């Protein structure tokens, strides 16, 4: 994975020093809270219901064992012994004290980590495929390109006061594990007819209160020019994105108001001016970064067989383990959705276990997924059983990846000032109905439930096969039910099924939906989403409200 050189380290050190100085000026009242707010937001520091919340960046979701150990240390020393992995592959801490913040930043910078640009109206942490570098179906590792974007977007002088936040995701497979069509810019690596590498560029996807699927502005931009092309997109957005209304300020609204044809014309015209200015890094820099993501030295003699005689292990393998491009290796997903747990939470002790396993068995590398799980991307099949046993002992081996209990959920009313309703307890109540019967879950197959505590949609409810949205109904917590969303390559937006429910009602409604699906599917490989797409909303509505 990428290691800082002297330049990267010097910039991070300067940034940390700058923010400490800004905090100092705020504490001495030399700047107002209003002036301080964008500064702290650009350093991932939110003021929440009970305390400061800090979001630490995990660039493109990849971190080393050493970094994971530091995240555990931070949880132990500055928080309440746990952290929360987010849908944008970062980690959040909910109980940070401002006085300790300087020390915390110092600790992070010791392991090449920071919290820059994890919030605020700037280009946020770049996200990517959690199977990058290991997936059997990828064209090349997408992370070197994400790293190029990380550097380009860090402290970008023109784009640090955008109309609104800006999220970019990069993938290199046909299978979309990073929800690129729901990002402000989604980049998909592909080849043109001559075999040259480039990107298909989607712009204007997003969730929030106006969910929109991204549209293609360019079928192919050569990799050597994608940075100047991104610069052109950002400039058009910075100049013309709406600033009169925060809810209409994302690039998706601009794209929709101009129409994709006119928006594309403006981007191309801008790019024609920018491209000759030499904004793209030279090939030598691409090569330098690509070399740092070189494949690990594989054990070529590693056996490609697995002993599945332990049925619990076999269940985990069939659900949570994916094919690796290297024979003898596998990709293992660590579920952060245990029974009665809080989706995405990991304790310090669990983080330490994972760091140990990464070091011992997985090339010292860990990934964070957008569905709030973790991944060990390069595990010898021969070591999988030992890995599984250690995970199991730490309550990290729930075999439920992509199943009904693998729920994405935002912090909701338990932590968030913007919430209309609690979301964590709803997810827990739904999961409780299924979590004791893994066979039943497996029988139901892939089923993505996503819960947000308000219209901002941090829990991706628009992209849920079943989406749940907390709303405020005359001062009472209430929940809307949406069906048919997908954040994958077959992206679609979920639609509201009918009137909302209270907390008890929504759990019952999900039950009825699932029972109906079970009876209506044509065969066990037809997913919930497929059945919904085949039959439409009417029979599901009938099943719930009828």
């Amino acid at each position, binding site marked *: 994975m990428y290691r800082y050189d002297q330049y990267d380290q*010097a*910039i991070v050190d300067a940034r940390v020093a*700058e923010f400490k100085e800004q905090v100092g000026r705020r504490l001495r009242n030399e700047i107002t809270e209003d002036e301080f707010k964008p500064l702290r937001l650009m350093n991932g520091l939110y003021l929440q219901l009970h305390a400061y919340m800090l979001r630490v960046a995990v660039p493109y979701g990849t971190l080393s064992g050493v970094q994971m150990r530091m995240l555990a240390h931070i949880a132990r020393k500055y928080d309440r012994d746990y952290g929360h992995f987010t849908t944008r592959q970062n980690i959040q801490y909910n109980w940070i004290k401002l006085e300790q913040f300087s020390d915390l930043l110092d600790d992070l910078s010791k392991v090449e980590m920071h919290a820059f640009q994890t919030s605020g109206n700037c280009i946020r942490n770049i996200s990517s495929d959690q199977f990058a570098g290991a997936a059997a179906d990828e064209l090349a590792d997408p992370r070197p390109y994400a790293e190029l974007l990380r*550097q380009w977007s860090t402290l970008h*002088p023109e784009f640090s006061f955008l109309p609104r936040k800006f999220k970019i995701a990069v993938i290199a497979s046909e299978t979309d594990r990073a929800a690129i069509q729901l990002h402000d810019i989604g980049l998909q690596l592909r080849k043109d007819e001559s075999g040259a590498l480039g990107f298909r560029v989607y712009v204007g996807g997003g969730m929030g209160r106006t969910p929109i699927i991204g549209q293609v502005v360019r079928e192919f931009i050569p990799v050597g020019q994608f940075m100047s092309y991104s610069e052109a997109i950002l*400039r058009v957005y910075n100049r013309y994105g709406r600033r009169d209304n925060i809810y209409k300020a994302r690039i998706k609204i601009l794209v929709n108001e101009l129409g994709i044809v006119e928006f594309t014309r403006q981007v191309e015209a801008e790019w024609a001016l920018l491209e000759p200015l*030499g*904004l793209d*890094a030279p090939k*030598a820099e691409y090569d330098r970064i690509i070399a740092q993501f070189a494949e690990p030295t594989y054990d070529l003699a590693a056996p490609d067989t697995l002993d599945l005689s332990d049925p619990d292990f076999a269940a985990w393998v069939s659900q949570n383990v994916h094919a690796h491009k290297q024979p003898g290796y596998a990709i293992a997903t660590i579920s952060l959705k245990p029974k009665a747990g809080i989706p995405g939470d990991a304790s310090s002790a669990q983080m330490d276990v994972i760091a140990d396993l990464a070091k011992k068995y997985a090339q010292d590398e860990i990934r964070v997924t957008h569905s709030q799980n973790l991944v060990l991307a390069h595990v010898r099949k021969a070591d999988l059983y030992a890995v599984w046993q250690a995970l199991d002992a730490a309550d990290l081996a729930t075999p439920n990846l992509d199943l009904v209990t693998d729920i994405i959920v935002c912090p909701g009313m338990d932590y968030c000032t913007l919430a209309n309703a609690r979301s964590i307890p709803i997810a827990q109540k739904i999961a409780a109905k299924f979590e004791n019967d893994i066979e039943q879950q497996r029988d139901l197959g892939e089923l993505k439930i996503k819960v947000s505590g308000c219209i901002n949609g941090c829990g991706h409810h628009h992209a849920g096969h079943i989406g749940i949205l907390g709303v405020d109904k005359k001062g009472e917590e209430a929940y809307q039910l949406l069906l048919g969303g997908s954040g994958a390559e077959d992206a679609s937006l979920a639609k509201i099924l009918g009137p909302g429910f209270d907390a008890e009602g929504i759990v019952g409604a999900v039950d009825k939906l699932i029972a109906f699906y079970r009876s209506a599917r044509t065969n066990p490989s037809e997913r919930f989403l497929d059945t919904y797409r085949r039959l439409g909303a009417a029979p599901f509505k009938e099943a719930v409200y009828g």
Partner: protein
Amino acid sequence: MGNHDRVASADGQDQVAVGNAAAPPLDDTPALLRFRSDAPDDGPLSPLADFLADGNAAAVRLDPADDARSLIPHLGRLRLIEVAFPKFRDGRGYSAARMLREAGFTGEIRAAGDVLVDQIGFMRRVGFDSFAPAKPLDLSVVKLTLERYPYVYQKAADGLQPVWALRHG
């Protein structure tokens, strides 16, 4: 240290100008912080629309929604372009300045209004070389801010080489 030399040679006026700009800010007039050695333009500023209608002025003011590129045919006779920042959060002026520099403008580009010390590093990079902040800036903090970063990650309008160029230079 070697690197600070690089910053200074690309943009030699920084230290001096900050040092010389230390005239005490008056309460009723915003202090002007300049990074140029020529004399400031004291002439009246025309709003863009007036300028485009009967373009004789040598100084023009751009509001956030104005199209900076509409000045490109007239850059040769402009000495000062002031870019208004009514609210610091409105970042359109950063694009305006950089586009003017990209078009070859070498006159003064001034950021005026809600200009805060934490922004002027970015503003210098996109091509601003004078500042008329509504609230006077603490010059010691300005100096600290401008000397903060030893390297930059991307090209802008200040001639600094990004780290990718230094790495492979």
